[in-house]
């Protein structure tokens, strides 16, 4: 606990961000520059808006995953919850016999999402089971119940209130490169990101989540109501997944119960890429946003960059490995530097 060494190292540490956000931002910028050089068509407003648009759903899902990961868990059932909540809602509102409109639909999806999240939370908090196992199990259950008992058909036309937003844009610009549309649903995504960031940093609830992720037994000893907070976390994640599911179907202008599920690992990858620790207790909204953007930029620009279709899977994998590899090496470097300064914990990494 000395003030020694609070010099260049500290400045670098600040810039790097507590979860490597700085490095991630640099990787992102380099990638954008690289893509733009490879194909000038990349560096245009339409592309930017398009990437933002395609980031909406992954971002909301990732924010939910972030919450779980910070609390020391991992969730692979959120995509199943998203589809379950949104598809069921669409089924119910197909005729919109109740005339409840969009608000009613969203509320219904939120309730379903919350209930499914509650199932996860109950199993995890009550039985203290490993989260991976619980969510792996509930993923199968939710998906199976949806397809076996709710419905498995592709619904081509959404209920009117939902269909109406499908084509609503926030900003429409016509540039030399063509039309650029920013979808109106970036607003809820942005609001959720901001709100979550505030909750995580400024409320005791948020800090308790970090504490639980840091050491769950210490959290219990500190009087934090671990069971309740875990329950709330999974309910909130369920609700966020429901929102993402609704947005996914609205933007896709159809309801397909076979979609979304299967992409869980990519979302988790984005969150971990964003600096969240798989072991819990670390992670930030900013990092997650950057992680999601990075993956979307990669996914959305390979054709533009001239990568042949057959090679795209490989390219995504290679870029992912490079992205996390750079981060891992950078983290290693600073550990080593710190080890040199003699600050005590560098031990486990200086082999």
């Amino acid at each position: 606990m000395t003030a020694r060494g609070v010099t260049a190292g500290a400045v670098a540490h600040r810039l790097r961000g507590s979860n490597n956000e700085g490095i991630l931002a640099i990787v992102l910028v380099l990638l954008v520059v690289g893509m733009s050089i490879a194909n000038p068509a990349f560096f245009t407003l339409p592309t930017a808006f398009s990437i933002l648009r395609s980031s909406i759903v992954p971002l909301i899902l990732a924010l939910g995953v972030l919450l779980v990961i910070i609390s020391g868990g991992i969730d692979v059932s959120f995509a199943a919850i998203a589809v379950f909540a949104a598809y069921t809602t669409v089924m119910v509102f197909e005729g919109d016999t109740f005339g409840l409109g969009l608000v009613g639909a969203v509320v219904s999806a939120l309730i379903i999402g919350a209930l499914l999240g509650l199932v996860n939370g109950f199993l995890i908090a009550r039985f203290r089971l490993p989260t991976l196992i619980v969510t792996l199990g509930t993923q199968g259950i939710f998906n199976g119940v949806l397809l076996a008992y709710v419905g498995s058909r592709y619904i081509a036309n959404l209920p009117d209130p939902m269909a109406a937003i499908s084509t609503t844009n926030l900003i429409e610009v016509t540039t030399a490169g063509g039309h650029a549309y920013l979808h109106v649903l970036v607003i809820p995504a942005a609001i959720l990101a901001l709100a979550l960031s505030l909750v995580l940093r400024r409320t005791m609830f948020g800090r308790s989540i970090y504490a639980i992720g840091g050491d769950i037994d210490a959290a219990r000893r500190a009087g934090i109501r671990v069971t309740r907070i875990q329950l709330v976390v999974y309910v909130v994640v369920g609700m966020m997944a429901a929102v993402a599911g609704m947005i996914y179907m609205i933007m896709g202008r159809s309801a397909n119960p076979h979609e979304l599920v299967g992409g869980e690992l990519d979302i988790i990858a984005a969150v971990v890429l964003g600096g969240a620790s798989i072991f819990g207790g670390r992670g930030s909204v900013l990092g997650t946003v950057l992680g999601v953007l990075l993956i979307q930029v990669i996914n959305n620009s390979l054709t533009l960059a001239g990568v042949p279709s057959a090679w795209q899977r490989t390219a995504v994998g290679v870029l992912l490995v490079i992205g996390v590899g750079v981060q891992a090496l950078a983290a290693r470097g600073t550990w080593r530097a710190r080890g040199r300064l003699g600050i005590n914990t560098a031990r486990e990494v200086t082999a």
Partner: protein
Amino acid sequence: MKTTRPEQSPLDRLNTTVDAGWGRLINRVSPQGGARRMLGLLIMAFALFSVLNPAVFLSATNLQNIALAAPEIGVIALAMMLAMLTGGIDLSLVSIANLSAITMSTLYTTMAAADPGQAERLAPVILLAGLAVGLLGGLINGLLVSVVGITPILATLGTMQVYNGVAVVWTGGTTLSGSPSALTNLGISTVGGIPALFVVFVVVAVALGVLVSRTPLGLRIQLQGANPTAARYSGIASRRILLSTYVLTGLLGGIAGSLFIARNPIASADYGASYVLLVIVIAVLGGTDPKGGFASVLGVVLATLTLQIVASGFTAMRLSAYEYGIAQGLILVVVMAYDEVRRRWARPVSRRPARRASS
């Protein structure tokens, strides 16, 4: 001061004797932790479907089919168990298996085009090449995890896509067919009614069981997973251990690949995608601690068989794949919850229940 106690009825007495005898029997064969629990479940599942639809479920064909389908999943699940033993995970296993199957198939068809007899004679070489590809895939994972220091879930998620992408490019997306007849024959032959592939699976499992619980390397792998820092301070070369582990999982992936083409003489980039999450379920059901340090080979083998039995039982009952998905999820959750409740019941107040060391 004697409280009157009702005389024990003969039935009760019988029950107690039977219980005691059963308990002794259980203790005699007593597998531990995951293995014990899976054994119970396996017997239950088997009994259930035997009663519900004996004609189909108990038919020789059906039992053979279970034994035929289990090996490829089981070997990958064992590999997953090994990765999880170090506290990691290997999502690239299926991609590695496919890549190795593709290698073998390509080598075989190329050679067979020139000289079919020669290609058959060189079957062992082809098999070795396939295993080498698995090894190489594992080596890359191992380097990423141990030297570069990437979290296993991300490293292998990345390489999963890379290996899969390479397979797509290599095959142009088509399904290759062709496999040395030595392998194909193995795929359809039986030993005493038991499919040869199942025998291969059992051999692999036994070898792995010995490795994990009876060798210095196995002990080091367990310790590395249990506490990496303490492992380092005990002189365990963490990097080398992680590297060996992932090389080994890669090799098992290669073996799974050869099981793929032994069972069906084809190789493609997209075979077995559904196994990725399934094998995690199996590993965990079998008693693997996802946090590392604890696993049971026997448990994983039994878990593989149990899920196969449930799957075939469900088809025999004409239940849909969705309902099987639900059952699979329920089994996982219920078994784990039951386990936890029982453990807490046995030690009602211990906050950090001491875990059994088993392997």
